[in-house]
């Protein structure tokens, strides 16, 4: 389980749902949402610890796995986003399109 970073900015709690594996975020209501925008943002170390402690109950209740706090970038005028590329990909999906049935791609 990741600890809040030292230079604290903001974090959310994320995990994978045990049965589906889907990426989920802890909401203010204490439920789990597949959408990053629904995540409760902890803005201090103590808030982060409380968030993690509350979320950890659902690991024990075998609802989620791989619980971690992830850092969030907060910038004026932009919606919050995960700070790292890895977490952005988890939140937003692969950066490459899901393979589709092809337009023929032969080039001569």
């Amino acid at each position, binding site marked *: 389980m990741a600890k809040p970073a030292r230079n604290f900015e903001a974090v959310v709690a994320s995990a*994978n749902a*045990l*049965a*589906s*594996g*889907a*990426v989920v975020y802890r909401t203010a209501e204490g439920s789990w949402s597949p959408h990053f925008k629904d995540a409760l943002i902890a803005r201090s170390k103590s808030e982060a610890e409380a968030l993690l402690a509350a979320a950890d109950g659902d690991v024990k*209740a*075998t609802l989620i*796995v*791989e619980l971690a706090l992830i850092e969030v970038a907060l910038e004026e005028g932009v919606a919050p986003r995960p*700070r*790292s*590329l*890895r977490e952005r*990909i*988890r939140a937003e*999906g*692969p*950066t*490459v399109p*899901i*393979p*589709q*049935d*092809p*337009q*023929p*791609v*032969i*080039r*001569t």
Partner: protein
Amino acid sequence: MYRYDEFDHRFVMERTKEFAGQVTRRLSGELSEEQFRPLRLMNGVYLQLHAYMLRIAIPYGTLSSRQLRKLADIARRYDRDYGHFTTRQNLQFNWIKLADMPAILAELAEVEMHAIQTSGNCIRNVTADHFAGAAADEIADPRPWAEIIRQWSSLHPEFSFLPRKFKVAVTGAAKDRAAIQVHDIGLELKRNDKGENGFAVWVGGGQGRTPMIAKKLTDFLPESDILAYCDAILRVYNLEGRRDNKYKARIKILVHEMGEEEMRAAVEKEFAAIRGKTLTVPAPEIARINAYFAPPAYQLCDPATPVFVAAQAADSQFRMFAERNVTPHKQPGYGVLTISLKPVGGPPGDATSSQMDRIADLAERYGHDEIRVSHEQNLVLPHVRLDDLPAIHASLIEGGLATANAGLITDIIACPGLDYCTLANARSIPVAQRISERFADIARQRDIGDLKLKISGCINACGHHHVGHIGILGVDRKGEEFYQITLGGSGDETCAIGEIAGRGFSSDEIVGAVETVVDTYLKLRQTPQEDFLAAYRRLGSAPFQEALYVA
């Protein structure tokens, strides 16, 4: 093809049921994640970035049409309509629910498939030359031996909790298409001057963090001794391999630390104690398994292949396809067809359900019902009549599968990287896409000629970058993706680990850097016949480094 008998069927059914029970116990909370992880891994289930991933075993890369259709069907109903063929000749589904696993595995069992030992610290699915049984240069078919070893290694009571994963590859040709020298055990099936079959046995090769070329423990082991010899190697490894550090736990480190001589002595000592007992493969068993892999009933064909010849003359696109994607077959009038899963700009190794269905149909209609998965992440129809190729080609064009780039620079191997993989440092697929777009011009690709470009998103090297003529390794530098280039690697019988060219390149720079390497080669090659690897071996790294870093 190998077909299950009643025991094999029962084995897979029971194992599938056992795993279903493990899934149920996990979902109920009886098993903790820590307890469940090794169990799910022994059955090919990973938790990746977005979902569970299921890795399905395709033993030595061989599939029937029925099996490929089943994979397509599973992709359609349980996943997002596509699958990813891997460098270990397996298939991965990226968006599977844990709760669906038992149902999927039960469906796979219906077509004699499973996910047993596709991950975990056990003997993994055995790989072999994807042209086995077809290639003109083959001495003997490696697949019967891959099958025999696969069976022996299945749920082995002694070797299911090894220090680390263990990979075995078998080739039956002097030209090594199975990369045996970078496997934990590499086997080269050969024939001695008395006409007997045996194996050269290589041990301790591998890629990853500490790439090493395997050491040859014996040059000729009688074929019937192969299980006893493998058993001896595994026992030495299981007892002596390091368990204190997972980065030092592969057998390559043990071989390195013990030294080749001592390793050989330890294996030979153990082998002497078990040789000639139950693990000796009896001649009737060798014959029985070989019979499954008998050549197909070749159809009559005109050895002059008039349809094939005429189509090449009439259609330059077809001619280029035939030149790159068709390899000589043992049988006159036949060819081995590589179906590239590397369309320009596409994710390497992915196929949609309908593409899988189309290839299954083609295999059934023209290809004696057989498909292979290559470790280069392409599909292969091993037995097709050359005169049927124009019709096959037309169908492949419709399916977006006719890319005529086998062995060329855009036939890129790439691991899933940070788009899917939880261990990744950087993305692989977008780099592959951009490189293939940069080199999209087929005339330019053909001018560059044979060039193996391989990309891994982290040091685990699933994309085999160490043995790429040009290798690219994704690294994380303070949260930013960087890419390190290695040059001169090779996974064939002239096996070599690529040398790091120098400092890494940013995501913006990497495609240009590859182009610089290629342009340097084009400028310095002696003749157009001197391919990249030959030129690199003649020139060394200096001119390439100069072009990359000085100029």
